[in-house]
């Protein structure tokens, strides 16, 4: 190292013209010294900054964050790193920054001063903003797609009513894959569908749309529920879309008061009527769609006769499933809630009572014969 090197990079220069802002404060946040880089950014000279509280240099949002998180964090752990905040310059403009702080303590651990390095993060912030905007756009598209697939009026008549409660996952930014459908398949018959596509986001919403349309088309051919699932198996395998989807499908024949149903990897429908206890329809079960069901034995289906004023609930696992507990507990809970509310069960009340803050959609559809 030559003398001129030392002269060029004197301690003073290293501090004053460092490629980052440098601020020293008392433990209570009062500024004692700033370097030239920082005062230039701020558009003030050092004298205009000393004596001020550091948090007064921040945007109001940053100030709240500083007081509630940054300062307590610093006190507890001695350092804080890479926290994003905006500083407000003398001319009122903002400058996005990243802050690192170190708490200097005396030998007995009492705080003596706070040293903060401030990095210019303008480009980085705009890039992050673009990333956020684009993920938000994607999320919006998926939401709109989901909404368009789930809108439309449900059938109803003097003989029956369909009550629905659908709650998209609240704790997540992404669209989940639950869907429902109910439509006439003939003058005196209708189909009820509740399903759950694996995955989230646009892809799940698109798979959901494909399956929903496929089921609507197949149902109109008077195909039996078992045969309909077998065709969906081939459809999902062929198009590699909607694999492992779980779905409950039920055909309702009003004249015969009969339901024919099949359940692919989905929680069982629940049935109750004035003369019968609330019970699960545990027949007609088989694995999720496309689960290499080419064993040749075919999918099962089951038939149930419906009494006057019978009700049937189809739903998704989000309604009953809780972390850390077996699904049977959730099913028992659903039955208990419905038992308590019979005979006039309102889907929204059941869903509210079973409310689940876990990040999953929940869907409950109740068909009641009159």
């Amino acid at each position, binding site marked *: 190292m030559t003398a001129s090197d030392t002269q060029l990079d004197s301690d003073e220069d290293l501090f004053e013209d460092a490629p980052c802002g440098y601020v020293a404060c008392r433990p*209570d*946040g009062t500024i004692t010294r700033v370097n030239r880089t920082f005062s230039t950014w701020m558009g003030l000279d050092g004298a205009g900054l000393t004596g001020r509280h550091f948090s007064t240099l921040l945007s*109001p949002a940053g100030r709240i964050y500083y*007081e509630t998180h940054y*300062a*307590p964090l610093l*006190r507890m752990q001695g350092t804080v790193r890479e926290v*994003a905040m905006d500083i407000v310059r003398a001319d009122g403009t903002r400058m996005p920054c990243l802050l690192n702080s170190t708490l200097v303590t005396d030998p007995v651990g009492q705080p003596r001063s706070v040293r903060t390095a401030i990095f210019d993060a303008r480009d980085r912030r705009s890039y992050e903003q673009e990333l956020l905007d684009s993920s938000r756009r994607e999320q919006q598209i998926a939401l709109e797609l989901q909404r368009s697939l789930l809108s439309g009026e449900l059938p109803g008549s003097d003989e029956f009513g369909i009550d629905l409660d659908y709650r998209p996952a609240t704790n997540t930014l992404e669209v989940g894959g639950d869907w429902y459908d109910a439509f006439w398949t003939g003058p005196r018959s209708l189909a009820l569908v509740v399903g759950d596509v694996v995955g989230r986001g646009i892809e799940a919403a698109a798979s959901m749309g494909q399956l929903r349309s496929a089921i609507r088309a197949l149902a109109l051919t008077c195909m039996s529920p078992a045969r309909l699932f077998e065709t969906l198996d081939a459809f999902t395998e062929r198009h590699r879309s909607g694999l492992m989807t779980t779905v409950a499908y039920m055909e309702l024949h009003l004249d015969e008061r009969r339901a024919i149903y099949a359940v692919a990897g989905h929680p069982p429908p629940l049935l109750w009527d004035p003369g019968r206890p609330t019970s699960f329809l545990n027949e007609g079960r088989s694995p999720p769609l496309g689960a290499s069901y080419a064993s040749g034995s075919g999918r099962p289906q089951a038939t149930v006769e419906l009494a006057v004023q019978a009700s049937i609930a189809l739903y998704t696992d989000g309604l009953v499933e*809780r972390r850390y507990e077996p699904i049977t507990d959730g099913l028992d809970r659903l039955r208990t809630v419905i038992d308590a509310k019979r005979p006039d069960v309102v889907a929204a009340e059941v869903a509210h009572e079973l409310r689940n803050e876990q990040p999953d959609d929940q869907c409950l559809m109740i068909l009641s014969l009159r």
Partner: protein
Amino acid sequence: MWRHVWPAFADDYRVVLFDHVGAGRSDLSAFDSRHYTTLDAYADDVIGICRDLNLHDVVFVGHSVSAMVGVLAAEREPERFSSLILIGPSPRYIDDDGYVGGFSEQDIEELLSSMDSNYLGWSTAMAPVIMGNDDRPELGEELTTSFCATDPDIARQFARVTFTSDNRADLEGVRTPALVLQCSNDPIAPESVGRFVAGQLPNAELVVMAAAGHCPNLSAPEETIERMREYLERVSVGAA
């Protein structure tokens, strides 16, 4: 939040510490975003705790937004509470006609939208990482459980409920003796707000602390304990 403070009272009082639902080590699955839309829901929980533990003659100590939760709880069941200690309370953060809350509506919207863009979420995600390198793991635990709500969505809703709340009208009906502990230079609940709270509450006194900032329970625990003690002695003498 209270680790420096509560032990000082453990000999003379039964100390009950709790995390609000959605924060700290509370059962996060009990958080229902449709239920916790106002501070009243949190006040109901405080009453619930008092009932379940059969607490009477309660000295409620709350910091920041929790102080207002205590005010609302005392408004609801005054017979349970013997006094309130309110550290940095604010019944409304946003300025209003003739009222200085300290923030404009725009400021608060900016805070909330910056949370929406996950600005604060990054830091909550970062906390365990920072603490992973720390040689004092117990602090990491406290940090992640008390400062950083484990779920950014809950944190966002809580911030919205907090910073858009307006409970000024509730103050005058709360006759429970109260101490308002006001920090000097509190950038979140400025002194004018502390004075407003103490002025509106029928039985309150204001003590301005030497400590600066918004979290004297962390930054100046000794002074906080001392002011609390002095007050509790005063009110118990007054009652006797």
